[in-house]
């Protein structure tokens, strides 16, 4: 009995997962960066919960939002540039969504 191992399959998994992950994470991070550039800093307070983790208090969240607004006011970008950055941000998020959907379609079709 010969044991045949398809090593290339492991490289396929590594390659596909690596490309998929880096595209999703990279573009999501880029999208966030663009949002910040557009002066719309995301301040997301954690949902209710829990005792074990550092949860941002309401006060801290307000402070963060204020700092974000201040940073946005100081931004030397013109309105047009900000709009552009915002569009770019949404485009990045769209790329993420497309990558995820594309990956799932590939699996289902196969």
């Amino acid at each position: 009995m010969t044991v045949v191992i398809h090593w290339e399959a492991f490289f396929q998994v590594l390659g596909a997962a690596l490309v998929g992950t880096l595209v999703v994470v990279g573009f999501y991070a880029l999208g966030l960066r663009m949002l910040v550039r557009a002066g719309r800093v995301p301040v997301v307070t954690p949902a209710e919960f829990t005792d074990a983790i550092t949860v941002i208090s309401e006060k801290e969240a307000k402070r963060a939002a204020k700092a974000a607004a201040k940073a946005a006011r100081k931004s030397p970008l013109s309105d047009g540039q900000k709009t552009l950055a915002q569009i770019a941000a949404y485009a990045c998020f769209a790329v993420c969504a497309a990558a995820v959907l594309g990956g799932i379609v590939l699996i289902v079709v196969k």
Partner: protein
Amino acid sequence: METAALIVVLVILLALFFDFTNGFHDTANAMATPIATGALKPRTAVMLAAGLNLVGAFLSTEVAATVSGGIIQEDSSTAHLMPSLIFAGLIGAITWNMLTWLLGLPSSSSHALFGGLIGATLVGVGLSGINFGVVLSKVVLPALIAPLTAGLIAYLATKLAYLITRRYDGKPDGRSGFRWGQIFTSSLVALAHGTNDAQKTMGVITLALISVGWQAQGDHQPHIYVIVACAFTIALGTYLGGWRIIRTLGKGLTDVKPAQGFAAETSTAATILASSALGFALSTTQVASGSVIGSGLGRRGSAVRWRTVGRIAVGWVLTLPAAGLVGALAAFIVVVGGGWGVLIDAVLALAVIVALFLRSRRNAVTANNAFSEVADSGRAIEVPEEPPLTPRQARAQRARERAKAKEKGTGR
């Protein structure tokens, strides 16, 4: 023939029970990070995980085909033994799972399942019953390689996420926005879980159906009603398991930052989905653990706690042979005792299930048994509160200090 039919019914029941406990146990894997970083409310997280497990189970049946068609070689001379051997294998898997829960050892339900099946087949049929090529290339090697793959990818992704969002001017970096992203990535993990873990039970049931002749020999794809049954069982297990975890959550959590959690989950989901597509039957727990460790290492100044890593690794390596041993023992009883052996096994299985049920009813739930090994593996990485500066940050700080010193000098 009637006993065979009875045994197949028992196999299906036991397999579905296994499916249920799998979902029950693994909710934490998918939903630990978003709950820990506060991306999702626990109630929403659990509902989402259950729903997506259900969907995932329908997406791909490659893994089911691996289990039903590749691992065990069908041979007409031993076909009559097969249903009781599968039964014995399941008992091995469930017993080992329960033992590890009671002892708080890290383990993998999937490997327990394979270990039990292989052990039982080895005793009942002998070496010729196992297709070692498939076992090696679709179970053992993926078990070793996939967590490393996921860890490497998570490491790179975490680095990338931090690199892109890092700012040197002290303005807000927007990393809190990764919390939104985590809602999607954790959903993907739940979906991936369905494409891999639900499949294993489908594979086992299909194997039993084939062995008793209720499904054609060459046809290894699970029937639609098998898919539906397994999908709903794992979703139900996920849903119910979640409540138990929520009740005890907050004790075993590690420090996971949103950006890191996002990267880790994307890597987990991508690795599992890619593997499912190729029919690799992996342990989703181990892949998720690999990602959490890798992403922890991606944070600056982090260090590995080798003792914790070692403990986790030993549990992983032990699972396959240990479950195999229990499965072999159960199979031995069947081979020696025939119909009576199956009865003895059934009684033992019932005892194990009842013990498991009683155990789950008990309120003394600790971080060890309620929270997943994934959270445990997070503790394998030590991350300092104040990470060391990047070269550019260090340069900026030196420049600031110089400017300050200069100011002081002129002011005097």
